[in-house]
């Protein structure tokens, strides 16, 4: 059985309470970090190669290193707990079951690049994770881990929960910053990157919850231990959320690089009703869909990129042979159309257009040339918008069509859906 790191404390009674966390050596890494120079902390995290768990996989230590040491403006940490990518449900569990790990990692990050305030941007619907984080912050403040001169180190830091209010795009770092400032979640043009000009104009790092929860472990046990859990460029374990047609959906912590086949068939018990696998979305709804002959891929950033998909957030959506691919693509397109912030024309106009065409194909009113039209719209969206949300719609839609083209064509030729609605499991 592989080592559990992030989920090791999940099943303990009262795992979210400070006394339980301290009993399990909680805040030991913070004490260790405070005894080091900030730049040594950055170097240590860099050496581990810890890559951002939100989806992009950018090395956290390198991100921290981008922040200028001297800055006239105050620096900030934003903890990305917006968790809205369909198929993803991991940060919610960390916040509910081990909130102090997020807080400890965040304090260490603040110390490393010199921020004295952090905001945990939790999506608005996550009321329970918000309450858990709030009470954990209160405990940490009372115990002297937050506030002025924490643990007698001379370092001041405070952390607050900032709720979102229902907007997928606020998971994108610059939209998150806008929303944290009290504005509509419309992404900013980069450069300047947040590390130079971010929250309230100050240098800012945006890190995912899972990434920060890993930081105390990296400090306690060192970069080599971390790399040893996975592989050189893809160290550590990863939280995988498996949903859809498997026998045992749920959240699993597995080594980086675990083969997708093993996750579906060994960890999750295979396809429900022992039906045939038809398609897998490997890392949240915006990652290109895979066919059954591609599931021997190792689940890590580089291997997925190597077969033309993306590792993303670890949200795996499994679809069996009863699933209509046009319907699946249409549902995702509807989501992106709803969530477009409206700032860039290609995304604002393109995503609803794609959703409309896919829906008419599914409804039996597809026209000749519709597939070319959709692919053309995808090409006109991708790379032509301020933020990656446009790509997040174009990439999976294109992949669904290219991977399952015959099924799309059959819909158009027969003027009906040959498969039908997603069946009810009861």
């Amino acid at each position, binding site marked *: 059985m592989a080592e559990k790191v992030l989920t090791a404390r999940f099943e303990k009674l009262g795992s979210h309470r400070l006394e339980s966390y301290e009993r399990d050596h909680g805040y030991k890494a913070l004490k260790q970090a405070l005894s080091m120079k900030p730049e040594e902390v950055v170097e240590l995290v860099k050496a581990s190669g810890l890559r951002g768990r939100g989806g992009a996989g950018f090395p956290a230590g390198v991100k921290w290193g981008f922040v200028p040491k001297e800055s006239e403006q*105050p620096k900030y940490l934003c903890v990305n707990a917006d*968790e*809205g*990518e*369909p*198929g*993803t*449900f991991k*940060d*919610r569990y960390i916040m509910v079951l081990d909130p102090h790990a997020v807080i400890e990692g965040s304090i260490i990050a603040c110390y490393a690049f010199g921020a004295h305030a952090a905001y945990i941007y939790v*999506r*608005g*619907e*996550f*009321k*329970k994770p918000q309450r858990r984080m709030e009470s954990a912050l209160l405990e940490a403040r009372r115990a002297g881990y937050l506030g002025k001169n924490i643990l007698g180190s001379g370092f001041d830091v405070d952390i*607050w929960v*900032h*709720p*979102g*209010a*229902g*907007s*997928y795009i606020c998971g994108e770092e610059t939209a998150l910053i806008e*929303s*944290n*400032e*009290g*504005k*509509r*979640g419309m992404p900013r043009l980069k450069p300047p990157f947040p590390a130079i000009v971010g929250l*309230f104009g100050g240098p800012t790092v945006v890190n995912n919850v899972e990434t920060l929860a890993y930081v105390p472990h990296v400090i306690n046990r060192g970069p080599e231990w971390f790399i040893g859990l996975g592989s050189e460029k893809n160290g550590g374990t990863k939280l995988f*959320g*498996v*949903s*859809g*047609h498997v026998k045992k*959906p*749920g*959240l699993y912590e597995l080594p980086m690089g675990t083969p997708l086949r093993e996750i579906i068939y060994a960890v999750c018990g295979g396809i429900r009703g022992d039906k045939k696998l038809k398609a897998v*979305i490997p890392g949240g*709804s915006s990652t290109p869909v895979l066919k059954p002959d591609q599931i021997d891929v190792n689940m890590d950033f580089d291997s997925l990129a190597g077969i033309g998909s993306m590792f993303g957030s670890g*949200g795996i*959506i499994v*679809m069996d042979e009863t*699933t209509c691919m046009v319907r*699946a693509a249409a*549902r*995702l397109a509807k*989501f992106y159309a*709803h*969530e477009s*912030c409206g700032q860039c024309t290609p995304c604002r106009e393109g995503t609803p257009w794609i959703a409309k065409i896919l829906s008419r194909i599914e409804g039996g009113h597809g026209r000749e040339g519709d597939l070319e039209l959709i692919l053309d719209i995808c090409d006109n969206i991708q790379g032509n918008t301020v933020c990656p949300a446009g790509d997040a719609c174009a990439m999976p839609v294109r992949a669904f069509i290219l991977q399952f083209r015959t099924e799309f064509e059959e819909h158009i030729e027969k003027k009906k859906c040959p498969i039908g*609605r*997603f*069946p*009810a*499991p*009861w």
Partner: protein
Amino acid sequence: MSEAAFKVNLKPETVKAVDELIGRYPVAEAALIPALHKVQDDLGWMPAAAMDWVADKLGLPRVRVYGVTSYYTMFRRKKPGRHCLEICTNLSCSLMGAEHLRDYLCEKLGIKAGETTGDGRITLEEVECLGSCGTAPVMIVDDEYHENLTPKKVDAILSDLELRDKGSADG
């Protein structure tokens, strides 16, 4: 009551909470979204007068607040029923039967998604991914997540709401 006639009468703890929120940020306007949540939690929705109250409190032009309120889906510009059911029909939930559950709810309540029952008791909404895909299908009932739903569980939720309403009417 018409929206124009709505008078904002917030609980003292709501006002206190908003004041406390402002202190968390270097600029008051950053407290806008958390403040709107506090006000909505108190009133149950976001009438124009409530947006104006928040704008004045944070020293912001009212139009800034209207813009933010209309952008984020969680702020309710229409007064909802006493209970809000928000069912996710995004891909993972739909693969597990969410579309059938939505139809079942519509039939039982006699309304379409986005509507409120005639007696003003229940508002049903179809929403996007709630980040609970491993326990799909999922629905938020008055801010609480209900997971691994089946028609039977939906029945239980609806009768529980009925009991609660009866209890408060009797009490």
